């Protein structure tokens, strides 16, 4: 469902110097699988996910999501994904119901209102469905954001550090939702720097550091490869081994 080959992306930093944020990242993720993108802050996780979501274009390399090329068919890619990150905001002056109908309509759903109603129930947000988002608590807002990302029931979910700022209860609901999505054959790419989340959720992990993929495989395979037991130790071993 997701196939990326040699993605590269550079930016200009504050001093006017080019910085390679992502340097030849290749990865894949399949239907019915949760793949974790693991890395410290600034590793290139978000840039990779933004390229896969067509928010930004890669400088080089290629990627296909749900069979669509991110360069030549960006609209089809976006229709096929549910994208969520800590920086995707909610329309503060709309109610959750209005947000869901709006996004479902823009995603081309002919039954936008029915989907919005179903999402209100699925994520248990019906009771504040008519309150403007500005007046919701952080946890409630995050629930609405998750509902917003998947209101059109896409085959691919790209979630970029979705638990940042979440309380434990909402985070547990999110995990339950993702596990259910996997059972329903959805492909999930999930970035985090919290090892516990990756250990619990991910079928495979891709460790990324300084824009480069250091290793990928199941958590068990990485344990064998590094000779470490805990995922934190595995991660530190891989990153230190790569450190210049």
């Amino acid at each position: 469902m997701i196939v990326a080959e040699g993605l590269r992306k550079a930016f200009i930093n504050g001093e006017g110097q080019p910085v390679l944020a992502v340097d030849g990242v290749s990865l894949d993720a399949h239907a019915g699988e949760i793949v974790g993108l693991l890395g410290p802050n600034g590793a290139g996780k978000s840039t990779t996910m933004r390229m896969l979501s067509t928010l930004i274009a890669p400088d080089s390399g290629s990627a296909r999501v749900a069979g669509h090329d991110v360069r030549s068919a960006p609209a089809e890619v976006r229709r096929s994904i549910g994208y969520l990150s800590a920086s995707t905001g909610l329309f503060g002056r709309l109610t959750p119901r209005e947000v869901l109908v709006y996004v479902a309509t823009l995603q081309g759903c002919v039954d936008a209102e029915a989907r919005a109603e179903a999402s209100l129930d699925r994520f248990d947000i019906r009771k504040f469905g008519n309150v403007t988002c500005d007046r919701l608590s952080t946890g409630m807002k995050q629930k609405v954001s998750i509902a917003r990302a998947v209101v059109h029931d896409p085959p691919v979910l790209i979630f970029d550090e979705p638990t940042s700022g979440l309380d434990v209860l909402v985070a547990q609901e999110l995990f339950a939702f993702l596990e259910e999505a996997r059972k329903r054959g959805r492909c999930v790419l999930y970035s985090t720097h919290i090892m516990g989340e990756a250990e619990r959720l991910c079928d495979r992990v891709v460790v990324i550091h300084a824009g480069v993929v250091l290793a990928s495989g199941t958590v068990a395979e990485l344990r064998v490869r590094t000779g470490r037991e805990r995922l934190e130790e595995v991660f530190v071993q891989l990153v230190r081994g790569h450190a210049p």
Partner: protein
Amino acid sequence: MSAAARVLWVILRSELRQHLRDPLTLVLMVIVPLVVYPLLGAGGSVVVKRSQEKADAEVLDVATEPAFALPDNLRRIDVPDLEAAVRDGTVMAAARRTTEGAEVWWDSREPDSLDARTRLRTALSKLRKREAARVVKTKDTMTNAERARQTAGGVLPLVLLFTLLTGGLYTALDVVTGEKERGTIETLLTTAVDRRLILGGKFLLVLSFTTLSTVLSGVSSWLSARYLLDIDLSAGVVTLAVLLFLPMAVLLSAVLTAAAAWASDFKSGQVLTTPVLVVPLLLAAGALLPGVALTPVTALLPVTGLALALREVVSGHGAPLPLAVGFVAHGAYAFGALILGSRLMGREDVILGSRGSSQRRLRGDYRADALTLFAIACLSLWFLGQTAQALDIRAGMAFTQVGLFLPLALATPWWLGLSIVDTLRIHRAPLREWLRAVVVGVSLPGLALCVGELVGLVLPAPSSLFEGMFPEDVPLWQLLLFFAVLPGICEELLFRGAFFGLWRSRGTPGLAVVVTALAFGFFHLSLFRFFPTMVLGVLLGFVSLRSRSVLPGMLAHALNNGLAMVALSYGWSLEFGWPMVVTAAVAVVALVLP
């Protein structure tokens, strides 16, 4: 309804819903144009008028020598000494008629004294007019009602424009820049909708609000004029004025939305949109200048043309042709702004708030920076350089060259993180290239004369073209310094150095020479001088290209200008003829020689 139109409608409807829930939007869109401006404008005028009437009704004591007719609100008192009577407060003002005119005394410490002085001066002026009227009788055919309408016609475009801009500015910043800050633009961009449609929907929202505020402002202006200021304005005239203004709403909504899209956050959005707020108001104020009238040509001037059209409509003198030209021209400008805006808005680096220029620069493309440099150089020349030269031509030239062009040329590569020496190509050149520069430089005046002659066949230059351009009675060395050496160095660094160096980052060097020459031609701000200076720019460009250095071009440029200064100083008249054609040919041959 097509799929695109349906998406636009969905976005517009959602944006309208969000903004109508924002109290500030309602205040800016409805309350301000409908209530605040009439209160501030017409209400203020009424208050001033009434307090003036009250003050006028108060009778003040004055003294005059000899006695002459006074208005009812002045009472004459006989005093022995006029000045002393004013100083001790016996009278508020005093006047003595003399053979030359009149003397008036007043006391600036006493507020009523100013009023008394004004009334006395008016009385004296009327007296003088009555005496003059015995010789010449004049009568203004313009009625008071017509005068009032003319004044209203001058003010109405400014009122409409100000309302449109203040309302549109907040909406554009909130709907585009604000969404970047709140992260909701990313939410929209991850939907399947085309980016241009997303921004198109936002533009329609800005347009809806600017149109609404324009219409409300028109209504309130009509009510204020009719019921507060007693100006006889028909509703039909105001409706026509508002309709004429609609292309302006489209144009400025597109510009505001594009400026807001370019900004990465609210703060930079305010900085970017400030010129959009100020420049149209200044252009509209241009319609109030004496002697500026609506013609099919002036109707083409952006903003000014439409402001003139409005003035004519309101004062009842609008001829159909210039009005139609103004309307169509501004519709075309609006369409152009929309096309440019939609291209800008289709760029993800712009819409996401990341510096689009950074990505271009990453690819080594600095052509947009070259154009920005050119725009800044033009504005600094037109607004600062020419003002300084009008005050003092020599100091002004030195300021323009050394204070404006030189820093611009040096600062641009530094700002972009490029090598100043390499970008401007301040490199040594072999002796052969210096000799080539001498030959070309000496031949250039002849070439410019030939080009001017050819252009004159199509577009005859006025005989006064060069009149007043150079100062008279100035020593030759000063002419050479200010008009040859300094431009030779600074303009070459600016054009064949910085502009050429940035433009040639992409494309062929030959194209860069031509584009630089076009910019050099435009820069001289004269239709008649455009072609000669452009050809001059092409030759100087090739001198620079051949030598791989900006330095020989400086010599050629200084020689060209210097020869013209010598000719001016000695009163030589350079006429077109075979010698000039041969000289021009020498310049071209010198360039193609190996």
